[in-house]
């Protein structure tokens, strides 16, 4: 049983919708008095992961729906990203190693590295169809005013990747 989300937004899988997502995060910050550093971490992880779903999750050209949720648990906040695109588990995807020289630096592959750095844990569960991803962010001051019942995300039995 998953806690009821404190806030959620459903966007279409279009890059233009990232602006709506950015504004949703800004509203979360105000509504839940989130510290600026935490807001940045959430903002960056969502930008990377949702852009990834939009760009690669629907190779057939279908415009899917992506649901993003926020809820609090003691000592942490949780972001859920559910999509109905093709299966992709970012927790099992190894990003390229860090470059040792500018000439060797690959063009891409940094999004997942940023997500692993800026979130404390990622949990993945394949859905039918689609994907469910949970990002955990440790945040003691936010968890202290938790309004949601403590419950393990339903992705807990899926792949876990600690920071």
């Amino acid at each position, binding site marked *: 049983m998953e806690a009821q989300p404190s806030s959620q937004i459903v966007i279409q899988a279009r890059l233009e919708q990232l*602006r709506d997502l950015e504004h949703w995060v800004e509203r979360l910050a105000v509504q839940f008095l989130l510290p600026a550093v935490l807001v940045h971490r959430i903002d960056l992880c969502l*930008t990377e992961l949702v852009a990834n779903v939009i760009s690669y999750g629907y190779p057939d050209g279908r415009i899917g729906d992506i649901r993003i949720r926020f809820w609090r648990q003691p000592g942490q906040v949780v972001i859920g990203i559910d999509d109905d695109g093709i299966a992709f588990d970012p927790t099992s995807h190894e990003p390229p190693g860090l470059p040792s020289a500018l000439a060797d630096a690959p063009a891409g592959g940094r999004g997942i590295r940023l997500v692993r750095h800026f979130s404390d844990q990622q949990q993945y569960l394949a859905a039918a169809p689609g994907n469910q991803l949970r990002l955990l962010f440790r945040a003691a001051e936010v968890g202290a005013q938790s309004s949601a019942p403590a419950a393990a995300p339903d992705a807990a039995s899926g792949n876990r990747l600690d920071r």
Partner: protein
Amino acid sequence: MELAVNEVDSDILGIQLSGRMDISGTQQIDLKFTALSSTRKAQILVDLSNVTFIASIGIRTLINNAKAQKQRGGRMVLYRPNQQVEEALKATGIDTIIPIAHDIEAARGAFGFA
């Protein structure tokens, strides 16, 4: 995003970026940034102090142009990123391949000027 050019001194071309370096922000400045930073040999100081956010696509733009500039014999130095932007640059190892400077003396040193 916005882009402004200023001559730091006779040796260094300053490019000041402002705003949110996400997908749409990076697209807004990408062509102009590339034209200024990597189409001819120069010492390029990219002022990031007014960049509030950087995503992987923004990092990709910095890398691609730093690499192209190096191939022309010049260099790019990143200048005064805020704490969150610098953390993203360090998390992806960019600080080890493009110098980051927080004052003009350090920037001049990174370009190899005395």
